[in-house]
């Protein structure tokens, strides 16, 4: 699965997440660029990233930073 994530770094929160099938890679890449162009026009500084994972759980394991706040990352591992 492909995940398109718009992330507000300073707030540490996901603004938007959309998933695509593996066969929709081109569409996902086009959407990524569209979001980036739109944010750029508005002067909004968000990170836009495309990730490909086996599942949403696998994505949580390798890129938990996008989904959890700092406290939760620390607490979950105590």
């Amino acid at each position: 699965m492909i995940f398109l994530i718009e992330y507000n770094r300073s707030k540490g929160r996901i603004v938007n997440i959309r998933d695509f099938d593996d066969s929709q890679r081109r569409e996902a890449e086009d959407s990524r660029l569209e979001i980036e162009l739109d944010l750029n026009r508005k002067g909004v500084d968000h990170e836009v990233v495309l990730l490909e994972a086996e599942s949403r759980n696998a994505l949580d394991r390798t890129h938990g930073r996008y989904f959890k706040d700092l406290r939760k990352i620390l607490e979950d591992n105590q």
Partner: protein
Amino acid sequence: MSKMPVSKTQIDRLGDRLKGGPHTENDLRLLDDYRQSFGEAYEAVVQTIRQGGEFPTGRLAKSTASIAEKLRRESIRLSQMQDIAGCRAVVTDVVKQEQFVASLRTVFPGASVIDRRDNPSYGYRAVHIIAEISGKPVEIQVRTALQHLWAEVSEKSSDVLDPTIKYGGGSESWRNFLTKSSASVAAYEELEKEHSIAVAAYEVMVAAHENSKKATAELLEHQLPDHEVQEIRGKLEDSTRKMERAEQEEQETQEEMLRRRNANADLLSEAVSWLDERAKEQKK
């Protein structure tokens, strides 16, 4: 419609422009084309890893923000950046990490290996392998679960507390926490290696002891002089002692690992308390 190939000079000029801001639409589109030129190499790398039974999470393209920051931070040209496309695998421990890295070196001969366990970057520990396919580099990050936890804490605190944390900045107390916990992860990795050796040694001793028992039983079926029987029994007792000692060593390393895990948990707990204190201060 196929796109015009972009020269290295054009890419590096784009990189120079990205260091500043705001970005123009043309530059964002040009960067997107450049990122997409890594697609085939990325696909080849990820497919090869999947065939080996690992399912890394792929990052199809490094974000514009991360590219611009890296260009500002390091004296690197955009065309030299090796992590435009990449993937990340998180394995359970350092022994698995060694095995996985060795297998990657086999399937990607000529790949360069950056071992951040020998030279941690501001506490960041991991192994990065740069595989090159048709002249396009693809970065494979291999982290243990603990290295990954450390990296997530460092990255997330850079997001929400201070963007300089990832590169050695931030408040002194948070820096100390990251430094101490990185050292603790390194110490735990040594224990993981010791434990793996101790387990292997114990397994060898158990197998040897089983063989000794069988051989002894067979020998004792024959009429042997007393002194030979004594000698055989002595050897069996010796094998039992060796096995017990190996078992004890394995248990001792396990206990040491548990102590270290508890110490790590205490560090995390201190960090949570620090965050709570900070939140209280900010409310005042």
